[in-house]
């Protein structure tokens, strides 16, 4: 059971510590600065990373080797110079935001807007663009989902095979590599894009997964909160099937996969794309325990009236124990559960908009 977590917000990085049954904010870093993503220390003692997105001065990457007491600025991932006449018209070729980070097997991965994946083999001191993905011809057809440019929001590394990973791109589908990023194949077959002309709705290259999460103990099982609904894979992301049994709505941004039980996942629903607020002003978390055949609507401790919180893609996290969760909204509210979502208590009510939550 983890007693530390991190909250990346529009105005800083907050360290949470659990003392007994209660979580509390213990330290603030980068106060006033937008933090778009963080990567907790690996195995509790490695380097902590914070990705900033300064409104004027761009993306910055900072590392801490003492769990946030002191920070050093590291070189942020940088796109190589754009070739003359680069043919992908209209797609940015410069770093806009770090949107995802992962670590496995001594390798760090950073997913970015406008859709490039970066790899570091030296603990974040330097980064290289994964050209094999960036040079995919399909990238010419990616586009922005919620942003002006495409972005990688999910990086799911196989827990036993560090050379296998699946990345999720809005809007560029899901891509899988089994050779440490040397080669890639589309991995979003079965997703459905209702925002496309009907004959293109099944095109895996332009899908908009909002977030993809992998069951650590059963890594062939993935969950996806997609722009058009909920999808699940049980064959290592080779195919996806739609889950339509969620109550009220299947729209949302976040999903958390139970680390040990492939049948269980949590979602943070909102009414619809065109109305991104809780159903009836009442906040709920949806949980399935049977692989998506049925859902429970969990509300205990969450506001049930006049509530317009939206939980963004990385705003729902589950700990390795499968029982401790954190839920954070773009309205700056933060809740915790110690019983797999059966009940929630508010940790903070006046934080800046929450971009990401992670245990560790």
């Amino acid at each position, binding site marked *: 059971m983890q007693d530390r977590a991190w909250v990346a917000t529009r105005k800083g990085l907050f360290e949470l510590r659990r003392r007994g049954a209660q979580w509390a904010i213990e330290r603030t870093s980068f106060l006033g600065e937008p933090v778009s993503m963080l990567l907790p220390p690996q195995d509790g003692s490695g380097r902590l990373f914070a990705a900033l997105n*300064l*409104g*004027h*001065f761009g993306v*910055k990457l900072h590392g801490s080797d003492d769990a946030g007491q002191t920070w050093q600025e590291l070189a942020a991932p*940088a796109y190589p110079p754009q070739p003359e006449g680069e043919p992908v018209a209209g797609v940015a070729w410069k770093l806009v935001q770090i949107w995802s980070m992962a670590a496995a097997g001594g390798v760090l991965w950073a997913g970015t807007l406008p859709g490039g994946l970066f790899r570091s083999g030296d603990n974040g001191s330097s980064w290289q663009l994964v050209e094999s993905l960036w040079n995919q011809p399909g990238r010419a057809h990616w586009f922005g989902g919620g942003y002006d440019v495409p972005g990688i929001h999910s990086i799911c590394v196989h827990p036993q095979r560090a050379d296998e990973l699946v990345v999720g791109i809005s809007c560029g589908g899901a891509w899988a590599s089994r050779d440490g990023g040397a080669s890639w194949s589309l991995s979003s077959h079965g997703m459905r894009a209702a925002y496309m002309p009907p004959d293109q709705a099944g095109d895996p290259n332009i899908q908009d997964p909002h977030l993809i999460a992998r069951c650590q103990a059963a890594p062939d099982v993935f969950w996806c909160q997609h722009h058009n609904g909920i999808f699940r894979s049980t064959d290592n992301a080779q195919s996806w099937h739609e889950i339509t049994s969620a109550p009220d709505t299947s729209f949302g941004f976040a999903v958390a996969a139970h680390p040990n039980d492939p049948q269980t996942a949590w979602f943070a629903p909102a009414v619809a794309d065109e109305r991104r607020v809780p159903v009836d002003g009442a906040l709920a978390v949806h949980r399935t325990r049977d692989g998506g055949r049925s859902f429970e609507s969990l509300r205990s401790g969450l506001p049930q009236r006049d509530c317009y919180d939206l939980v963004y893609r990385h705003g729902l996290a589950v700990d390795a124990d499968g029982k401790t969760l954190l839920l954070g909204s773009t309205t700056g509210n933060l809740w915790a559960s110690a019983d797999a979502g059966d009940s929630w208590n508010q940790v903070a009510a006046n934080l800046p908009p929450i971009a990401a939550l992670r245990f560790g």
Partner: protein
Amino acid sequence: MARIVFTQQLRRFTETPQVDAPAATLRAALEAAFALNPRLRGYVLDDQDHMRANVVAFIDGRRCSDRVRLDDALKVDSEVHVMQALSGG
């Protein structure tokens, strides 16, 4: 000598040298400052060496519009101010 001055808003991140340099263009003036503080480059220019979208440069009071070439000419006594644009706020 042309003079280049950076917004105080940068000081919480890195040193902002005020530089007098025989620079004939905006880019040359920026490079003279980056030579003194290499870390400053990434705060003013993006990874394509273009001026960041929410950074603005004024030469002798006139706002520069070209963010890519940065080849606006400087006079021998030009004053360049590199500011943060309110659009980024």
